[in-house]
């Protein structure tokens, strides 16, 4: 790799400071491609040299051009073959081809017409059959002279001549890519190859001591490591579980999804006609459909308190039925388990207890983005003598403080088995409002006393769902993205640690309007800079090298981008016919495009030959929605989205071709006004009709200028700015349907020419 050639280049660089690969090829009389190869291998060594890729264009003769340089132009050869008395075309052609075997009939045709138009020869029909005779005695073959000169490397052709010779396929443009080199930060004239990495052999032989090692690219990401993952919801569950354990709560055995109506409802003093016991809300079972072995004495006490009251209660005064209590179901809350636990606590002789559980419950509800038929319920229960509502509030503050929630407030609520009942609200700094985060209360005596718990024992309880805080924590708005088989495993893999007391996720972020605005500005600026660079490149091509520009614009026939159509027309009209437009419809369109979209008035649409045009513009109607896309061919990542951005691009191209002023050729204050109008329009597209009416109002104000102006931006009447072209076309359709003031009617669409 590190060849003698490479060192020769480095030596030259050391002596001369810079070097062009083209110059070196000439100097050393080497093939240029070989020098380029050397440059590339030097670049691989790291920062030994720096090299800029440059492309330059030069004009060279085609094969036909070389013939002309040698034998004279077609017209001169035709002229020279005509005898003094003149001759028929066939005879002349025969003669020329006899002299010059490479001369074709086509060349002869060109020769005749050129010679005629130059006034060298005329047709004489006086003797019947048409004869060509010389009109002048001698000629100067300028074409041959020009081409001879070009062949020596001197390019003095005028633009017109160049265009003409190019059309005659006598000359062609050749692009040469070359490198301009200069010494890099670690420049040296002796070349050693850098090693990529340490090997066992190097360690064994000690050769690492003398080697140089290639630097790591620390901006790239490392390789993903193979690993397993726990599910995000289970991680949040673990955090809640930990909190309960820290607070001294014992975990309840909740591994029984099937429950009887008795434990799920009746034991909780939930009457048998309660809506929650409807088939609309609860999953009942057909197999096994009923439960047995309900404790008989206890059941009698429950029956009595429901139907007749007792324990200080009026009861519900209805006919309690055991059949209803025996119906099996999928538990609708883990409180069914709490009831079993409290009953067992009473049976075994009451001792103060704190219980918790986090497990699945089932509701036969209508499903939506935040509700599933099964979810996890978190429940906490405290049973002790003389507990108060103040105790419940105190415990809830401590519990939620461990989750990083400090601000709570409580709302009176109704729940059949708790009294008092409180809904728990917390202040959400992101949403800037109070949101309900759980339910709580003190179990009713009608529930506790039939179990046999002492009369002065109170039981505090609260519950919340596990999914909701998890969705808030990780910023999900569809619960199916979090649980169930449709979950994206990549999400599970990328999910961070669960630290509920650490406010870092999307949920707790204070939104700052000013910050939003700044972010928006930043993103607009970044996009604009991207477009700017793109256009600068285009400008360079357009002006210096005349490289072909191929644009593909995709737009939806449902939302034809009128302003872009207008700008394309302007490109065709003002760009000296350098642009050829072809219009197509994409096969994915549901129905054919209307004719007015396929055939644009006042525009020659090409038959598809795209050889000599400077700009080939392909327009494709495609169902892509409101935002058209332009692709600049041969330029990956060069896609530009949205009507306003594309309009900016086309305006810049137009300005670079014609030196007219419509956008950036105005001074910067006008230019920024134009940007402002375009941005306002983009805002309208995002947020719909209300903003649109504001835009109309702004336009009306602007047109209300005392000079009765009919334009939005710019110093002079008759000079249409991009903003005028853009907005007048965009609004054209809408204005017809809206009741616009007189002023607005002045603002008629700019239609191209």
């Amino acid at each position, binding site marked *: 790799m590190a060849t003698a050639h490479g060192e020769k280049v480095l030596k030259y660089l050391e002596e001369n400071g810079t070097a062009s690969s083209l110059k070196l090829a000439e100097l050393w009389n080497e093939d240029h491609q070989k020098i380029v190869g050397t440059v590339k291998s030097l670049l691989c060594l790291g920062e030994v040299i720096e090299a800029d890729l440059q492309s330059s264009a030069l004009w060279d003769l085609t094969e036909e051009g070389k013939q002309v340089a040698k034998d004279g132009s077609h017209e001169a050869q035709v002229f020279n073959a005509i005898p003094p008395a003149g001759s028929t075309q066939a005879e002349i052609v025969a003669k020329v081809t006899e002299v010059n075997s490479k001369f074709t009939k086509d060349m002869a045709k060109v020769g005749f017409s050129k010679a005629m138009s130059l006034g060298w020869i005329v047709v004489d029909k006086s003797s019947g059959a048409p004869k060509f005779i010389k009109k002048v005695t001698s000629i100067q073959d300028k074409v041959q002279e020009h081409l001879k000169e070009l062949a020596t490397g001197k390019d003095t052709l005028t633009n017109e001549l160049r265009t003409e010779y190019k059309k005659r396929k006598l000359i062609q443009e050749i692009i040469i890519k070359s490198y301009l080199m200069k010494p890099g930060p670690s420049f040296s004239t002796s070349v050693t190859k850098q090693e990529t990495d340490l090997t066992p052999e190097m360690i064994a032989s000690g050769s690492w001591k003398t080697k140089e090692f290639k630097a790591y690219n620390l901006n790239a990401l490392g390789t993903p490591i193979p690993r397993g993952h*726990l599910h995000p919801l289970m991680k949040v569950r673990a955090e809640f579980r930990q909190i309960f354990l820290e607070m001294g709560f014992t975990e309840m055995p909740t591994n*029984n*999804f099937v429950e009887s109506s008795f434990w799920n409802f009746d034991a909780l003093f939930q009457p048998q*006609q309660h809506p929650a016991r409807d088939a609309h809300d609860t999953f009942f079972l057909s197999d096994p459909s009923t439960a047995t072995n309900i404790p008989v004495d206890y059941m009698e006490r429950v029956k009595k308190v429901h139907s007749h009251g007792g324990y200080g209660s009026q009861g519900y005064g209805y006919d309690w039925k055991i059949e209803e209590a025996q119906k099996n179901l999928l538990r609708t809350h883990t409180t069914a388990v709490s009831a079993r636990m409290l009953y067992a606590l009473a049976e075994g002789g009451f001792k103060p207890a*704190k219980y918790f559980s986090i497990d699945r419950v089932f509701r036969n509800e209508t499903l939506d983005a935040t509700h599933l038929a099964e979810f996890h319920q978190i429940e906490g229960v405290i049973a002790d003598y003389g507990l108060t509502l*103040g105790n419940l509030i105190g415990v809830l503050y401590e519990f939620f403080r461990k989750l990083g929630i400090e601000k709570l407030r409580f709302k009176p609520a109704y729940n059949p088995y708790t009294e008092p009942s409180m809904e728990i609200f917390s202040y959400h700094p992101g949403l800037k409002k109070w949101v309900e985060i759980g339910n709580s209360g003190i179990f009713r005596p009608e529930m506790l006393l039939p179990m046999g718990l002492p009369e002065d024992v109170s039981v505090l309880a609260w519950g919340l769902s596990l999914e909701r805080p998890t969705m808030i924590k990780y910023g999900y708005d569809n619960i199916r993205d979090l*649980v169930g088989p449709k*979950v994206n*495993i990549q999400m*599970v893999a990328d999910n961070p640690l669960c630290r509920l007391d650490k406010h870092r996720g999307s949920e707790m972020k204070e939104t700052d309007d000013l910050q939003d605005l700044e972010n928006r500005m930043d993103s607009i600026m970044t996009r604009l800079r991207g477009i700017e660079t793109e256009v600068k490149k285009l400008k360079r091509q357009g002006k210096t090298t005349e490289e072909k520009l191929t644009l593909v614009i995709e737009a939806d026939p449902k939302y034809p981008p009128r302003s872009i159509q207008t700008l394309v027309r302007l490109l065709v009209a003002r760009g000296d016919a350098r642009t050829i437009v072809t219009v197509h419809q994409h096969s994915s369109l549901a129905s054919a495009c209307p004719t007015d979209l396929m055939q644009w008035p006042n525009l020659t649409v090409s038959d598809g030959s795209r050889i000599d045009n400077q700009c080939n513009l392909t327009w494709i109607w495609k169902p892509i929605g409101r935002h058209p896309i332009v692709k600049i061919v041969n330029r990956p990542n060069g896609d530009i989205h949205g009507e306003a951005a594309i309009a900016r691009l086309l305006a810049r191209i137009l300005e670079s071709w014609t030196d007219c002023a419509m956008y950036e050729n105005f001074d910067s204050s006008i230019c920024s006004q134009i940007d402002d109008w375009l941005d306002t329009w983009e805002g309208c597209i995002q947020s719909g009709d209300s903003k649109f009416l504001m835009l109309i109002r702004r336009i009306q104000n602007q047109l209300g200028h005392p000079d009765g102006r009919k334009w939005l931006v710019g110093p002079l009447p008759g000079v249409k700015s991009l903003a005028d072209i853009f907005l007048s076309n965009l609004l054209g359709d809408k204005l017809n349907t809206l009741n616009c003031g007189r002023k607005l009617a002045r603002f008629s669409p700019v239609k191209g020419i």
Partner: protein
Amino acid sequence: MPTISINRDLLFKALGRSYTEEQFDELCFKFGIELDEVTSDKLIILKEQGTERSAGASEEIIYKIDIPANRYDLLCLEGLVQGLQVFLGEKQFPAFKVVPPVTVPQRLIIKPSTASIRPHAVAAVLRNIHFDQNTFSSFIDLQDKLHQNLCRKRSLVAIGTHDLDTVHGPFFYEALPPDSIKFKPLSQSKEFTASQLMDLYSTDSHLRHYLPIIRDSSVYPVIKDSNGVVLSMPPIINGEHSKITLDTKNVFIECTATDLTKASIVLDTLVCMFSRYCGDQFTVEICEVETPEGKINNYPILKNRHEKISVDKINTMVGINEKADEIANLLTRMCLTATVEGTGSISVEIPPTRHDIIHACDVYEDVAIAFGYNNITKTLPKTNTIASQFPLNKLSDQLRDQLAQAGFTEALTFSLCSKEDISEKLRKPLNSVPAVHVSNPKTLEFQVARTTLLSGLLKTIAANRKMPLPMKLFEVSDVVVKDSQRDVGARNCRNLCAVYYNKSPGFELVHGLLDRLMQLLEVPLDQSGSKGYFLKPCEDATFFPGRCAQIIFAGTVVGIVGVLHPDVVTSFDLNLPCSALEFNIEPFL
């Protein structure tokens, strides 16, 4: 939780002052109701039917307010305003009176034939009432709200209100064969038999929901006056003849029911709310109801119940320290008239509007609400307990950690699934699976409780086919199987399932995982089978023949490991080999 729609301007006019939205929201929060939405007829129509339909609609602001399910007394503007004004201490709660009429009371005679279909009825009369358009609408709306909530969609109680001056008592409540009932129902111009009405209303978006309550009965309930004029056919429709209008002066209210307690509550609520518009305010005229046994009961009951409450008990339950008279004041603001009786005791009078108060604890809550939940000093309970984990959950979590450390990723799938997920798709007949069946699933996804974790994991893989191979998933969770030993006939089983999905089956990988888990559980490989674990070749329809083994632990089968049958793979929309391991972890506790 019922939601009522109230015209904001009417509400503020009745309250005698106006509020900003925030102020009113705050008041609701304290009182225990919730301002759910602020809207207008126009906005509602706009949202549901589009711009054109909303053109002429009213733009008056409507407050939608959520009312707790047990506060029937707040379901109309009249009740809400009364509740709030008393809460704010601006008004006193009125006393309701039941009086006999000048002449003989109206009588409703219940015939024995009603016993089989809708045995109870109660009635009352509102005399010299004055409706305007707003109060009339409110009266109709309240009946509708009561029907939907307390009356359980008319199945427990159905209300009929009639212009008393168009009919002549006594009234007869009986049950007759559908074809012998014929009358002109509300808003119809001709007479229909009851059977015809059932057809007529079978497509009515509102009434068709109530038809099943009586449709299959051989007799339908009907109320007629002494001339045989049909007042109503509860719980479906009233007669056109006796319908009330804005000009109605005397209203006859009947409630028929399957639950007498609730019928009485409904009647009390209705007359308490609207007796304010009677010539004699807050006064209701008595009706006699004759039972089939010939017993005469007077309605409405409108009883003020008295409850004696200990001040200490209140202070202890709520966690405050207030004197008896202060607590009496607090209760007065909740529409409960309270008087201090001697030391430490309060007598609370519970009016007929507060049927939700059935125990002293309901009174404690009202004290707490009036005191303000957010004014109560927070304290920590002194309960001192030692925590412990549920051993099965602890083991599950330890194994889950180990599975993740072994490079497997946790999935979280549903406990409910379709029948085919646990049978056909796994190549097993449904009747061989001891599954628990749901009787009322809304979709196929909730037909049965899962008996295996495997289907859920395979569905997860199917939804993640774009992920790089191999895919290694696990779940440690409960499945449900029938078990006649349990009181409910079923039990949960804590299973561990792991699957490996790749271009090659990778049986050795899930096998290796099993060995690793056994190593962690300190279970040795023991071919004799008495102490440790071993694999015993078996055939299972879910697995590929010759590529399947039972996991035997301490002599019993605890699970299975193998390469899935290709038909199982394809039935879950997968196309690569897959090996799986599933066993019950409970024996390893």
